[in-house]
């Protein structure tokens, strides 16, 4: 048959075929060689999907493993306005589920954009309702949302995280680098329907979740502290209140309560003033609680002994053309009674005998005027001026807790140092950091900062401070069956208008420890601007007593009841 074609036609046919193959070959070279890189990228775009995955933020638990903060995947809703047929209908359907006005939703859905967030980090139940609705042009993606299941409990210590999961306050902020999960980009293969066929980097696994924190805080002690503090602040109609409970032997913070509280699950409507951790940011003039520190310094330096007699000057004494008053005329009293009765004159005289240089040295040694370096953000250093800047009355004033700014944390740390036999410990709130598999990455050992006073001096001061509860201004801090040591404080606040001490605004406080012979708890209660009976012994000491009794019971610390039982046996 081919032989029947004339030779000329055969050549033409061959030429046509060669041309055809040539075109195909040229096209192949163009696609496979010349445009290979560009087309390969285009194909990858269609077949592959790159997603950013982030490991879940680490959890936070108390010292017994009770959950305090955890991330849960929750739905966020977005709209694709270009793909919507009727924004009005869609908005009306979404409105009751998202709890948003349909006008607002419609406005968002009418935007000339291909993507718009409608609501982020909703409750899981809302997500399930949206799934059932299955609306065109409305999509749902899962995002991690931080939950604080205990509500306002420990809120000032935990802090909170922002919309994008970053820690903004408290432990959440301080330990951001540990809590944050690993971010990883992953390439997925997609089929024609957009379904994921096979993740290319599947062998690499999911991104690593963030580390988990174990706090030194005890949820029950924290609850007791917050409940009693809220109650005291409410009854005294005070501006605010703070309470800290420390283990004096280790510096571990067992509770840190601030009143009023806030809910970290809903912080957007609150002012920063509400979430400030006053226990470590706000400095105040401590008033008479400072006398415990001054007494420790004076006894350590052998300026006085507990039985040294001090003259109370009939209730008033002139120093640098100003008059220092006592609330009662004491006459001749022992130094122990000076502290127990909270004599300003006795404290001023002892402070002046100690001298400004030694007093200043002990203030710094007890940790005032510097941060305690607790592992929480925003800590203030307080205010201890250099003796060069002190006035003629400064030694007397500082000895009774004026002209000095301290934070509640500094004060309780100083009192805890006396409880701990004279060794100042560094306070801390995070005891362990664990990875996602539960392996311990870091443990915080108790850290002694320095020895401030000798054990003998600490014992002497403890006996004096026990007298504050048995015979002095702090009787309401007593706990039945336990020896309590502590000191009351009632400090006048500076009136910002006049620049002088206010006659109506006070800070009432009590700092102490229990049991005095083997301290398990060091606590401070600070009530800001209580109304009515504003004495520290009347407002703050009862909180110490109520919390102390319940916490000792909770911890199973034995009381002195065996004495009662033994006496009963003898009678029978």
């Amino acid at each position, binding site marked *: 048959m081919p032989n029947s074609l004339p030779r000329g036609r055969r050549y033409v046919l061959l030429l046509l075929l060669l041309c055809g193959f040539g075109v195909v070959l040229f096209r192949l070279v163009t696609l496979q060689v010349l445009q290979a890189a560009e087309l390969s990228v285009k194909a990858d775009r269609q077949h592959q999907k790159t997603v950013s995955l982030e490991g879940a933020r680490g959890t936070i638990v108390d010292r017994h493993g*009770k*959950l*305090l903060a*955890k*991330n*849960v*995947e929750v739905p966020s809703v977005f709209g694709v306005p270009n793909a919507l047929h009727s924004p009005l209908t869609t908005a009306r359907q979404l409105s009751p589920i998202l709890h948003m006005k349909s006008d607002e939703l419609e406005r968002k859905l009418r935007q000339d954009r291909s993507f718009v967030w409608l609501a982020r980090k909703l409750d*899981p139940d809302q997500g399930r309702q949206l799934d059932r609705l299955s609306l065109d042009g409305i999509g749902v993606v*899962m995002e991690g949302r931080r*939950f604080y*299941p*205990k*509500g306002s*409990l420990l809120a000032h210590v935990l802090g909170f995280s922002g919309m994008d999961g970053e820690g903004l306050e408290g432990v959440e902020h301080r330990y951001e680098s540990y809590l944050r999960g690993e971010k990883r980009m992953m390439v997925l*293969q997609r*089929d024609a329907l957009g*379904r*994921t*066929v*096979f*993740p290319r980097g*599947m062998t690499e696994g999911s991104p690593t979740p963030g580390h988990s924190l174990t706090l030194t805080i005890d*949820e*029950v002690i924290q*609850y007791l502290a917050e*409940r009693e503090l809220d109650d005291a602040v409410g009854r005294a109609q005070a501006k605010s209140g703070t309470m800290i409970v420390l283990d004096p032997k280790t510096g571990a913070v067992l509770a840190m309560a601030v009143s009023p509280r806030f809910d970290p699950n809903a912080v957007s409507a609150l002012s920063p003033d509400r979430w400030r951790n006053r226990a470590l940011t706000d400095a105040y003039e401590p008033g008479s609680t400072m006398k415990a520190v001054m007494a420790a310094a004076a006894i350590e330096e052998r300026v006085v002994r507990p039985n040294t007699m001090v003259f109370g000057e009939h209730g008033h004494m002139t120093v640098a053309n100003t008059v220092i008053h006592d609330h009662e005329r004491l006459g001749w009293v022992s130094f122990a009674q000076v502290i127990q009765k909270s004599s300003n004159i006795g404290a001023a005289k002892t402070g002046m005998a100690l001298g400004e240089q030694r007093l200043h040295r002990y203030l710094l040694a007890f940790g005032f005027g510097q941060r305690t370096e607790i592992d929480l953000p925003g800590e203030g250093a307080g205010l201890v001026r250099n003796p060069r800047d002190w006035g003629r009355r400064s030694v007397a004033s500082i000895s009774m807790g004026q002209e000095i700014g301290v934070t509640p944390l500094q004060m309780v740390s100083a009192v805890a140092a006396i409880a701990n036999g004279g060794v100042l410990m560094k306070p801390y709130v995070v005891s362990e950091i664990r990875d996602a598999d539960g392996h311990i990455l870091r443990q915080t050992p108790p850290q002694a900062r320095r020895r401030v006073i000798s054990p003998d001096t600490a014992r002497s001061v403890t006996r004096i401070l026990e007298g504050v509860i048995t015979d002095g201004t702090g009787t309401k801090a007593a*706990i*039945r*069956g336990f020896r309590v040591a502590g000191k009351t404080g009632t400090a006048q606040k500076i009136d910002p208008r006049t620049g002088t001490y206010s006659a109506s605004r006070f800070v009432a406080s009590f700092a102490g420890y229990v049991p005095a012979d083997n301290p398990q708890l060091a606590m401070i209660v600070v009530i800001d601007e209580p109304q009515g009976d504003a004495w520290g012994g009347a407002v703050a000491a009862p909180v110490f*007593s*109520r919390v102390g*009794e*319940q916490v*000792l*019971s909770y911890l*199973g*610390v*034995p*009381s*002195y*009841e*065996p*004495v*009662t*039982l*033994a*006496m*009963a*046996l*003898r009678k029978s």
Partner: protein
Amino acid sequence: MKTFTVFLGLCLVFVFVWERVDMVRIGYQIERLKRDKAVLERQRDELRVKVSALSASDRIAKLATEKLGMNLPQQGQVIIVQSRPSYVYPSNVVPVELKIAKNYPASRRL
């Protein structure tokens, strides 16, 4: 021989195609299982948060006092007794070893 070679070739092609198809099928299966796992993990996390919220001390205290009519113990009503007392007793008193007794009502104390 030629037939056998063709048959072998077809078998190889079939195995290759079957392997590719099965890989895709397993890929879908893995993805579905991963989605199921994610849902279950999400439910687990939600439940953990719920358990934590329900076991909060303030909630339990509120339920105990408001619904069950319980009261907080007053001062002195809770006594913790040392099991091995370190207290030095007077000579005429015989110490007795006691087990820990918590929440011992004031009305029944010795």
